[in-house]
């Protein structure tokens, strides 16, 4: 029983270290953070440490799937709050991603023109 708990603690400690979070010095241990206090008040978006780690790993995985260099992902996620990670999780493929307007717009325009052409409204692709 105790052995299992000990193993779990070691595992948690190793995950923390792997993720570069490290251990906060014990002197700060009992401080309740501002964000934690806010989320306690709001009663939502609240995560414990392990949930937060799992969430971070999940978003990390999704980012690598979308072609982000695995070595760069952690740095990118480090500046996101837990709440923001919750917004991102599972949504990376569908949230608005601002990209190259010019090509995409030309693509849309081309489609519209093609449809207009096909239904016979316009006649731009045929020259006399």
């Amino acid at each position, binding site marked *: 029983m105790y052995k299992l708990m000990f193993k779990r603690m070691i595992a948690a400690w190793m995950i923390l270290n792997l993720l570069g979070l490290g251990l906060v010095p014990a002197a700060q241990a009992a401080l*309740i*953070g501002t964000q934690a206090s806010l989320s306690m008040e709001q009663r939502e978006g609240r995560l414990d440490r392990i949930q937060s780690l799992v969430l971070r790993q999940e978003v990390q995985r999704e980012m690598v799937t979308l072609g982000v260099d695995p070595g760069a992902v952690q*740095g990118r996620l480090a500046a996101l709050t837990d709440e923001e990670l919750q917004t991102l999780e599972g949504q*990376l493929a569908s949230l608005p991603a601002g990209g190259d307007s010019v090509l995409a717009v030309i693509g849309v325009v081309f489609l519209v023109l093609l449809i207009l052409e096909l239904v016979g409204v316009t006649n731009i692709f045929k020259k006399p």
Partner: protein
Amino acid sequence: MARSGAAASLFGILPLALLALSGCAGRVPVVDTPVPPGTPAVELVDTPFFPQEAYQCGPAALATVLGAAGQGVTPTELADKVFLPGRAGSLQLELVAATRGYGRVPYPIEPRLDALLAELQGGRPVLVLQNLGLDTYPVWHYAVVVGFDPGEETVILRSGTQRREVLPVGRFVATWQGAEFWGLVTLTPGELPARPDRSRYLEAVAAMEEVGQTAAALAGYRVALERWPDDAIALLGYGNASYRLGRLDAAREVYARLVQRYPRHAVGHNNLAQALADQADYDGALAAVATALSLSDGDPELRQAVRQTEQEILQRRARAHPRHHSSSRRRRARRSNSALSCASRASE
């Protein structure tokens, strides 16, 4: 010959089609809030310009606003931080996170045209998300609004490969509305936006604190307290940021101010207890933690956190005066465990 003629007429009709797409087709351009009468003309001509390379409007727009905020960085450098190859674009939240990485406070403005114009008047360009396509076939694009001309009723943007794109207000708003009027300014720590909304601003600052930009957060809380001296979140945040920077006197004083103003603020009493214990005032710390306990009845999670504070203080007092506490040796044996579980909670 015939082919080049077709191409010529195709390009002749392009601008028209573009206009139809961004302005008329798909949605009715509704100005959410009319331009406030008497809004003067403004153009932030010194705003830098980074012509966008393929798919890189996010990095280019972010480099533009960061540059205007005094943080020189190239789109190429930013691309490694915000570009998602699989989406051929960048997400809003990643622009927000990257801003924090450069020590600037990302503040999403109120989703209204007058809020955007107020930032311009305050000298800050605004990074906006636009939908240049249709609701059903969105084409997301980032640009930076740098100017407004009330006479011509136009806005001026740094956008894509255009240093000075001029759009009629109505058309700009239509594209901006497609992106739910999302706009971002990048604040230097300690700077307030033109029309600061209290909870929006404090949320932006608390996020800086959460991701470890403690000094920037402290500056943000300080200016928040100048504006809203009695705000409980600003007081708590100022105390916590001070504490994490090792400024125990400042932290203790502001926690004391917090619980004096809000006597039922359990977290305030808890953190005051911690700061007092750090300064070896164990009696004061135990009194404060007792108050925190009495106030945390209906909240099991908070109560558990306060209990741990109490344990920590008792342990420290035992260490400081070992002779008075026979059970101190047993407590010491458990210390490594409790330090671990405390630490896993501390950075929440």
